């Protein structure tokens, strides 16, 4: 194992912002900022639909706002088309069945000391690591 591209400061700063956003969503809307639930509810449920859609629009505005600082945003996808589609399907189906993703289980759930979310987070990180081990980066 070698350590590469390690950017702890920007990662931590971004994390603080994510935590603060989750706090705002909780204290104003009374809800957990789990993006997979917000996204799936926005298409599957009428309740809170506009809240959900506006949160997602906010997610899209975030990087645009950041780009005004003049810094480049790096985002590289190297997958072949079939793997990209398979990956998207697995993420969609998996987060729906498992009721959460990196934000819902990983950030909000762990913050609440939920054993269920801690379990889910360990499982998806382990399967993620295992998948990268097999398919490579």
């Amino acid at each position, binding site marked *: 194992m070698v350590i590469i591209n390690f950017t702890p400061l920007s990662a931590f700063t*971004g994390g603080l912002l994510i935590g603060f956003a989750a706090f705002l969503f909780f204290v104003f809307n009374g809800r957990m900022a789990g993006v997979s639930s917000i996204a799936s509810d926005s298409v*599957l449920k009428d309740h809170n639909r506009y809240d959900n859609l506006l949160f997602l629009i906010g997610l899209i505005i975030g990087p645009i706002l950041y780009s005004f600082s003049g810094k480049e945003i790096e985002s590289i996808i190297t997958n072949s088309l079939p793997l*990209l589609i398979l990956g998207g399907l*697995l993420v969609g189906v*998996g987060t729906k069945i498992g*009721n959460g993703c990196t934000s819902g289980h990983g950030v909000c759930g762990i913050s609440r000391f939920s054993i269920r979310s801690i379990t889910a987070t360990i499982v998806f990180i382990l*399967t993620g*690591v295992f*998948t990268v081990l097999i398919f490579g*980066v």
Partner: protein
Amino acid sequence: MTKLSSLIAGIIFGLGLTISGMVNPTKVLGFLNVFDAWDPSLMFVMIGAILIFSPLYFIFKRKSRPIFAKIFIIPSNKNIDKNLIIGASMFGAGWGLVGLCPGPAFSAISLLNINVYLFVLVMIVGFYLGKLFQTKSR
């Protein structure tokens, strides 16, 4: 008013995803590439987010109600069941294949990459399929 706070929370969340580098699938895969060339950065994203949210959550959940909405909605399901394990495993596999989870996938829409659009579209199809599976297994 909940619409305004949703939008603002989303924007700050999206800023956080951008600054932390999570909108870059290659960086996320670097985090999962533990046994080869490992980029531990994303661990610090989670630590930062939890460090802020966790104490504030426990302080504010004791309030009688949220500022704009009527009630706090806190997940009550504590079961570690088959659905949780299967779902989390599938999600982890998809995450490890592409390097995108739902939050960054939406944020990356602004980066005008056709691959991201396809991913988000298929992910939404996945939500429908997942719901079908959920209703069947009940």
